[in-house]
């Protein structure tokens, strides 16, 4: 009997969570390949510090993966898997040139961490291989998604409410639009260069 009560309570808790947490899904069109969609920070709301620690690899003269989305405050590790020297630098974060940084040089097999405390897109470059290109997109909230190649995305566990949602694509202008989340919500974006 006691056990049944516990089950019922658990189900109720889950249901109540589900009741006020929805999803945002849709499609980013107008551009080809992967894009990033993230929820802008609601005023006054803070998020627990992120625990994920993604790794961006430099392999075969390329950044892998090409785009990584992280929550603000995330530490990203940069690995060099090549037997040639690379470096990682960016000239701005979210267009702010004061946030430019150069991480220097490190040999094969080593990782160097960097904590991204400012939101915005970070265009990664290497000063020896000018064709190398990668992006860290720092989202101000924990609600973000990388689209698939066709532009489809789904952001899960977004509490019901009104938000501003931004779509980002390499080389295109960002687009931000208001989205009211109540259960499963839709938001499509059409970006242009």
């Amino acid at each position, binding site marked *: 009997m006691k056990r049944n009560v516990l089950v019922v309570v658990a189900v109720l808790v889950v249901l109540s969570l589900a009741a006020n947490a929805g999803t945002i899904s849709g499609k980013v069109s107008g551009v080809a390949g992967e894009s990033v969609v993230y929820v802008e920070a609601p005023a006054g709301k803070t998020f627990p510090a992120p625990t994920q620690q993604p790794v961006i690899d430099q392999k075969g003269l390329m950044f892998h993966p090409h785009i990584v989305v992280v929550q603000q405050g995330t530490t990203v590790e940069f690995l060099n898997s090549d037997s040639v020297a690379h470096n990682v630098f960016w000239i701005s974060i979210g267009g702010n040139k004061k946030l430019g940084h150069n991480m220097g*040089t490190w040999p094969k097999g080593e990782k160097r961490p960097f904590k991204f405390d400012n939101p915005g897109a970070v265009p990664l470059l290497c000063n020896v291989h000018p064709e190398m290109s990668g992006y860290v997109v720092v989202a101000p909230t924990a609600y973000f998604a990388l689209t698939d190649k066709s532009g489809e995305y789904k952001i899960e566990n977004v509490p019901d409410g009104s938000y501003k949602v931004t779509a980002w694509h390499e080389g295109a202008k960002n687009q931000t639009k208001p989205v009211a989340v109540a259960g499963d919500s839709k938001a499509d974006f059409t970006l242009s260069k």
Partner: protein
Amino acid sequence: MDTRQRVSLFFAFIFTVVLLTGSSYAIPAFSRQYGTSCSTCHVNFPKLNDFGKAFKDAGFKFPKDDETFIKVPPVMLGAPAQAELWPHTIFPGTIPGLPPIGLRFNTFFQVLGKNRHNFNLQLPAGQVGPFIPRTDFQPGLFSIFMAGNFGSDIAFWVDDDISVGGSGASGGLGDGYLKFVNIGRFFKLPANVLSMRVGQFELDLPFSPARSWNLSGWDIYDQANIGTSSQNVNNSFALSSAAQGVEFSGGHTYRGYHYSVAVVNQNTSGSSASPANVSPQVGFVSDSNFKDLYGRFSYRFNLERDPASRNETQAAGATGPRDHTYLTLGTLYFYGRSVQRATGVESDGTTKTVITAREPFYRVGADFSFNYRKLNLFGQYLVGRDHNLIPLTPEGFELPVGFIRSNPVKFNGGFVEADYMIHPWLMAIMRWDGVTSSADRINGIGADAGNPPPSPFLSPFRSARNRFTPGVQVLIHANIKTSFEYQIRPQQIVYDPATGNAITNPFRTNSAVAGLEWVY
């Protein structure tokens, strides 16, 4: 050579200075194969950075883990496992997955100084010299070049200027060779101590005239030792001449020691022969049995403080990898035996025979290159000496019976150049070239106004000719470059040695040359 010919040589010189030195290369085929920019290997194409030097030393491969960088997989000419069946099967190799072809085109514009006609003033009455334009647009080269690796560390290179070659013409081929990299492994030698190159190639000079980034070549590498009419040398060999033969080399050009030893064709006449009695009929490029010897040794001191970085291909800087701070010291030596043949007589004074002089000659040089961040300062000093055996005609004989030693024919000179990278796309150049050759002087004007010099760059009473060449090169893209240089030749007035009066106006012509070139 009559006056008119000599005057035409004047143009020939000016134009060839520009055209001959156009043979510089960057390799778009490698860009395609590795999916990387020209600047991975080049500072300002075709000038190599430290990584480019290592790539070349390794036989056009990444020095380590080459296969992990190739974006276009090579085509197998045999499964790798076939190697175990050898000698019962052909040893497996590869060819590049894309045709390893690069193309290059360039075009020029030049402006000559006002005194460009001063030679014509010296022509004998009644002779009209050719017109020399103040400005001229010139089509450049269109050349095709191929390079890569066939697996098993066998590298290849072929470049050919298809715009000047024409049907049946010779001279279009630049370098064409196979390089067997690291063959020392078959003799259990340490890695990289022995490689072999076979074919036609530029001698392993400290600074490659064939792949120079300058619009005009370094004068000393083009210096031939012809001698005067009273001498018997006629050696048209210059260090920049293409050599055919075999070369053994080892070490690295980006750190530590590097050496090469080559055995190449002797050709001092500058021509080839096709004797009718040799079947199948072939042409010969050698003009003696003796093969010339060339050797070079250099040592590069990488001066990075951090010992780990010192031994890497590129230095690790605070903001990223870069070329090392280094000092390279090198030396080169070339030895040949030039053959001069003449109709002579035997000691009876009547029986005709061919008499042959074998004149040893050598070129010995020292070079340095210092690099600090964006500045590269480098130079070459070279001495050349040819034995001079002159025909000996005894009294009462009409033809010589042999040769006797006379004063050797010598020259020396070199260059110093500073390249400064103001931006990764903008290079400023300052350069001095100097050549001192008494034979050049004696071939010059002398006191006879009716016998002008073969080129405007020779001095009448001084044996040295100098040239200062400031320049600038701008990369529009990594594969498109526009270059400008101003060639300043200190002007000289010809004085009549008898009267001390000037007999002609200053005649060394300055010129401004602009070039545009692209590779793809």
